């Protein structure tokens, strides 16, 4: 009896810890999307720029950010200011560095996805809009972007689902998100249970995301 009771208590404590960590995981997830999508659009624009220098720089950016581990980027963003400028940015900087590194990294992926979508648009759509008198901005926001969004949605969904799982990488900066807490609990309890519970959290989160994205995709399937 005593044993079961204790097991339940441990379980409840673990759940509470993970739930607290989950809030932080959600914050990393949400803020990364918030910053990386516009930044990705910007880099995509730069990548397609007619100005060679801009285009080359954006290419280099994409290539490096996609070609090196996100974990390494996290460490660089966090420790960089200290080793380069000898400045110490305090404890809050752990979280900020996480958001910066995640946003920079995901922007590179989004930039390439957006570029694929924009380049798949036929010239005729721009020309029809031009001849009808739409301005450049109107053409972009009314004609091109809505169609591009539909086209890139499957790839963007993939990235979003990966991002949910990638938030666990913030552990390397000891940000107290869910996975960090699961690790701590696991080693304290000498049990894999916290990991399994954490896995369940990630999975449920992604189930929900999948559900939402499917709905969005459906809402755009009125044309092909």
């Amino acid at each position, binding site marked *: 009896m005593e044993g079961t009771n204790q097991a339940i208590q441990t379980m409840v404590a673990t759940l509470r810890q993970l739930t607290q960590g989950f809030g932080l995981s959600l914050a990393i997830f949400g803020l990364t999307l918030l910053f990386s999508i516009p930044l990705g659009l910007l880099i995509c624009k730069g990548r397609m720029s007619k100005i060679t220098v801009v285009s080359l720089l954006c290419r280099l950016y994409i290539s490096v950010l996609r070609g090196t581990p996100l974990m390494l980027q996290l460490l660089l963003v966090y420790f960089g200011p200290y080793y380069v400028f000898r400045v110490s940015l305090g404890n809050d900087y752990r979280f900020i560095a996480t958001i910066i590194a995640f946003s920079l990294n995901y922007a590179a992926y989004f930039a390439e996805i957006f570029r694929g979508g924009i380049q798949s648009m*036929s010239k*005729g*759509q721009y*020309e*029809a*809009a*031009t*001849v*009808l*008198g*739409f*301005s450049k901005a*109107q053409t972009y926001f*009314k*004609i091109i972007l*809505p*169609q591009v969004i*539909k086209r890139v949605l499957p790839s963007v969904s993939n990235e979003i689902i990966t991002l949910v799982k990638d938030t666990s990488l913030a552990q390397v900066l000891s940000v107290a998100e869910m996975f960090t807490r699961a690790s701590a609990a696991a080693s304290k309890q000498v049990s894999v249970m916290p990991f399994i519970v954490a896995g369940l959290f990630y999975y449920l989160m992604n189930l929900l995301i999948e559900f939402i994205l499917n709905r969005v995709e459906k809402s755009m399937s*009125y*044309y*092909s």
Partner: protein
Amino acid sequence: MSDVNNDIVLEIKDIHKSFDKLEVLQGIDITVERGEVVAVIGPSGGGKSTLLRCATTLEKVDSGKIVIGGDVLCDDVDGHSVYCDKKLEREIRSKFGLVFQNFNLFPHFSVRRNITEALIHVHKKSKEEADAICDGLLKKMDLEAKADEYPCNLSGGQQQRVSIARALATNPEIIFFDEPTSALDPELTKGVLTVIKELAQEKMTMVIVTHEMSFARDVADRIVFMDGGVIVEEGPAYELVTNPKQERTKAFLAGY
């Protein structure tokens, strides 16, 4: 403004256009009067599309002059074309319509929105006005029932008629057609040609690039035969088709 003839809707004077080393238009002159229907025929690669694209601001000419509805789009200065400012260019765009070979409808817009979007957001008409114009045009195109459909659910012929309605909506002074039936199955071609024929009867000013010789002969006032970037021959439609003067025209027409 004194030398602008009000009855001339389109004036193209000695335009040249090259892509890299290839001179696609080698000095083209065309004048179209109000109410006139001009068919442009000729073998593929002869520069017909490029001519229409230059007239509709989609390509810029290297030299020569283009005047549409009395507004100078570009004028020749020392052998180079100088274009008007962006503001006038946009104004000129509201004076013509262009119908593409492959329609280029906006797939994410309903038929109605394809037609009304420019009316509302470029020409600043109210939604009610735009809808009224749209309804009138759809009736004319025999597409009243399709206002809320999306282009992907229409046949090619219906899509092309929507695109004609879209071009007509802003009440342009002239409409250009670039092979409007070339992407269509033969049985769908008829409906589109009928619509264009009706427009001709209403004295709509039109320039039509087409391979439909009998249509060109019957509907156009004048035919221009283009080959190798030049106008080889032009004349009254019936006469050019039945009694061409130039060898190249004869050879081309013999293929039909």
